[in-house]
């Protein structure tokens, strides 16, 4: 069944697909976000779940004029006991992020003290240029958390990095311990989430551990 591209079912599935794609292809030097939904259709599969076929436009967060088309298939499993399946095909090439990645990698590797920061962006939406790759890394990594926890009734976005702390490693990987705030659009809740993120320019981003944190409801 064809969906109007502006229908909430289409936009939720699209947001999920974009998050997953960003996780698999993103890095501190390359963040991707959903620009538009061109087409969407939904299919109810008896005994299995709901399958979406999507045609999306994605944009490069570091260069808004740079967009790329992609098709994606999203399968929400019945009962939502397992994370949705997401498959995608990107048309054309993504911008090369090697230089930006290496600059960030070397910068962190040469720090004398482990990086620590909080409230990115700040209340006024500011992200300092030095923190931009740290922000992007969280954006990419949160794609994993979003992917693993999405259903047809949720739409997650990264709201803010509350706290980030670099964890010293003896190998070549960089490790960061993030506490992020996820905004869930349908319930409007702000959900704190902890995630441990591993990254290396040649090995991509990996979330090795994550856990939902209790909310401070009365604050």
């Amino acid at each position, binding site marked *: 069944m064809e969906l109007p591209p502006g229908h909430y079912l289409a936009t939720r599935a699209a947001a999920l697909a974009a998050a997953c794609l960003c996780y698999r292809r993103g890095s501190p030097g390359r963040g991707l*976000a959903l620009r538009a939904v061109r087409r969407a259709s939904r299919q109810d599969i008896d005994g299995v779940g709901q399958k979406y076929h999507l045609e999306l436009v994605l944009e490069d967060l570091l260069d808004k004029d740079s967009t790329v088309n992609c098709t994606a298939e999203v399968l929400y499993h019945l009962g939502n006991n397992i994370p949705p399946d997401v498959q995608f095909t990107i048309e054309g090439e993504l911008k090369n992020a090697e230089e930006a990645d290496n600059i960030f990698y070397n910068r962190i590797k040469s720090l004398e003290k482990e990086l620590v920061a909080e409230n990115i962006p700040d209340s006024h939406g500011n992200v300092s240029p030095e923190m931009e790759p740290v922000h992007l890394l969280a954006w990419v990594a949160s794609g994993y958390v979003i992917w693993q926890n999405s259903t047809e009734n949720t739409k997650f976005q990264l*709201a803010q990095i509350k706290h980030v702390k670099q964890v010293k490693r003896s190998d070549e990987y960089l490790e960061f311990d993030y506490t992020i705030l996820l905004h869930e659009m349908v319930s409007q809740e702000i959900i704190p989430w902890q995630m441990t993120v591993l990254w290396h320019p040649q090995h991509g981003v990996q979330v090795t551990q994550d856990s939902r944190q209790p909310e401070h409801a009365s604050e």
Partner: protein
Amino acid sequence: MKFLLVFAALAAAARGEQLFVGDQVLRITPSDEEQINLLRALAEHTVVQVDFWRHPTSPGQPADLWVPFPGLQAVKVFLESNNISYSIMIEDVQELLDEEKKTMMKSKRINRSTSTFDYASYHTIDEIYDWMDMLVDDHPGLVSKLQIGQSYENRPLYVLKFSTGGSNRPAIWLDTGIHSREWITQATGIWTANKIAKEYGQDPSITAILDSMDIFFEIITNPDGFAFTHSSNRLWRKTRSINASSNCVGVDPNRNWDAGFGGSGSSSNPCSETYHGPYAHSEREVKSIVDFILSHGNVKSVISIHSYSQMLLFPYGYTTAPAPDHQELNELAKKAVGDLAAVYGTKYTYGSIADTIYMAAGTTVDWAYDNGVKYSFTFELRDTGRYGFLLPSSQIIPTATETWPALLDIMVHVLEHPY
């Protein structure tokens, strides 16, 4: 002997005023210990106050000496006759003080007019209340400020009224900041209110609108929440009312209206961000608008501004059934988002709340619509999630600028379609 001369000259120059006209500060560089001793003696034995702003310490290190005007000549003669090198660092101390004072006054004055207010920054509740008074001052006869009630924590609920006269003219209601964390909305509200006031008499559309209709604009619709986003939790959404049965604070003011109240898309859990409250209109912030609009009796449009998602929405949220005026509202929304996109290319989606974003019961626009206000719209401003609620202040003016033609489209349509 030399000392006595200097003392005499300085004594003659003694005066008791505190003015600094003509006073100078000399930068003196003693070349040896003897000159340092001479300088120290000069400061100690004088009748007229000279004062080291920087004391002589060692040869070659500069010392700064403040010398009142009457003693200038004597001191210079003393320095020259002792071959102590110096230069004039400050030619006239009073001039410098006057300059400083002017700069300070100027910076205070910067916030004294709406034309110099910094629209490109996020402001505190007090700054916005001050700005409101400035707007009224700057546009007497067009803008006035009303108080329609008080918040839970007793903050005033102010509404700006734009009117060129008449009596109970058909009116348009605008509100921003009902969800306090949506900072781009209050910021857009300020810019827009200023724009309305500025453009009356200049822009044909807004002039035509205000010549026949009134505009009521509530910019800080949830002041308690807004204050809380500044003091404690930037991502606070609800009001700050205490819930009888729970530790959790606050009610979602956009689920508290009497339209499908308590239905799908609102929560009965006080800890939830979409908690609808104990009963419809339980929140003072909501009740005061309800009372205002009902007693006014001639409101033709309600436009409630939120963020984020880049959407233009209309009723219903509490049901999937299309509103009777769905087609007309849909067409108008389509036109408005087209004109919005024409400014910077920002893409909005549009449609009924239930189709486009989610089921939501007890919303502002559903209540307005069901109470006879046909042209009821909700904006969800920038962005689509990249920054979300934490939209950089650099996007305030672009957001407000692109939203303006969309607002005008709606208001012009209301003007041209009286009912």
